[in-house]
């Protein structure tokens, strides 16, 4: 755990830069994490995914997988990779201020 400042707010992050407390998150923090990870601006489509992820996480205690995102977020997998290059589930979780999705087990 490391204490850091994102968008002017003191927050705690893990070794990979994921917020440890989802409640410490806000939309400015999201925008700054996005910029640091190569997404200059968050569009409505980005937000659709991020909001879906947060909602699911706060409801189930687990971040949805890429397959669940593709089926239920309203954004198909191909587009997810365009919006969040490399690893959409991981990057959207990071921007959304929730823990890294585990492959479960």
């Amino acid at each position, binding site marked *: 755990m490391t204490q850091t400042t994102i968008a002017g707010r003191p927050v705690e992050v893990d070794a990979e830069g994921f917020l440890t407390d989802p409640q410490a998150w806000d939309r400015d923090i999201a925008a700054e994490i996005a910029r640091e990870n190569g997404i200059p601006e968050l569009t409505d489509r980005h937000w659709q995914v991020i909001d879906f992820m947060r909602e699911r996480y706060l409801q189930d205690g687990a971040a949805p997988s*890429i*397959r669940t995102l593709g089926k239920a977020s309203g954004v198909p997998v191909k587009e997810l990779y365009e919006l969040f290059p490399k*690893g959409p589930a991981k990057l959207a979780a990071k921007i959304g201020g929730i823990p890294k999705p585990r*492959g479960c087990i």
Partner: protein
Amino acid sequence: MPSRIVILGGGTGGTLAANRLHRELGEAVEITVVDQDDRHIYQPGLLFVPFGLADPDHIVRSRRAQLADGVRFVLADVERVDLEEREVELRDAAALPYDVLIVATGARLQPEETEGMLGPGWNERVFTFYDLQGARALRDALARFDGGRLVVNLVDMPVKCPVAPLEFCFLADWFLTERGVRERTELTFATPLDAAFTKPVASKALAGLLDEKGIALETEFATGRVDGAGGVLASWDERELPFDLLVTIPAHGGAAYVERSPGLGDELGFVPCDPHTLQAAAASDVFVLGDAANVPTSKAGSVSHFEGETIVENVRRLLAGEELQPTFDGHANCFIETGFGKALLIDFNYEQEPLAGRFPEPHVGPLPLLRESRMNHWAKLMFEWAYWHVLLPGRDLPGISDQLQTAGRHAPED
């Protein structure tokens, strides 16, 4: 009037639950097990078929024959579950009203979810060993294989037996060595996970074994499409793995009727439930057992076995109007074949990841955890007998408790 218990699925979980309930609740209940076929496959045996180590005909028995006398078996497809009417609608058979429903229909392979997987080359150079037909076809292909690029690929989690893809790699290394073609083979394991396995300590041990055996590990590989004709496996982020032979573990979902039953399942067709009581989130008179559940533990026969007592006791309590007991702890226990007559054993639950130690008796064993040994391999082979004669009849394995024993467990020394 006896309470009507309907169990959907006559696999590991459904069978052991039916037999336990019948024994413990006797005349007070009327138990019906529904399945779409009468072929109970010993699924751990599928791993051995491609290497000629198990005869495909010997790992299949009648489902009906595994059920105690007095348990009714209905051969039918499930159309849907009506949670409000408390009724299971069947295709071409009379609907089954229930007082308690147990969902134990496992997981289903969905190769159609990956672009191109069922296209040219399917069962010719693209195989899965997760069903009998595929395992058999792969056995013939491996017998002919004389070197080249062999890629083993896990499409997405969750899958049944998440260690099986690794076991396949280890056994392929052994098999090809014995056949004298290992040196001409490039063996790669491609996984969507960021490590060899889901849990850190075991991942490290398993990655060490992959490395020792010269098996390349391609992590965070999210499978996008399969080109069977061209021999290319591509990820969503445009990485390409060429192959001569692809052994894939397709995406999994729950049984198809779950999607047709409003409110019962999630997007993937798995059924949300309380991870400790196994009561379904959708309705208090529904329980979920085994691979069908979306609980955060392995989809494995051992899990169904360890869930058995919790399910049976909670069905009894529900019928008696008592509070449910939250006794299931996510306990899973898996042998991992590592080739050349050895195996690892891992034992874990929701809270504790697989660690080193001894099993089943702390400090004594005889089986070492998270370490290769011949004894683990023999135990894995002997387990098949216990499966048919102890697990399915719904009996306890002597000396092995349903809950994880944590005494003497520790991270392995390097």
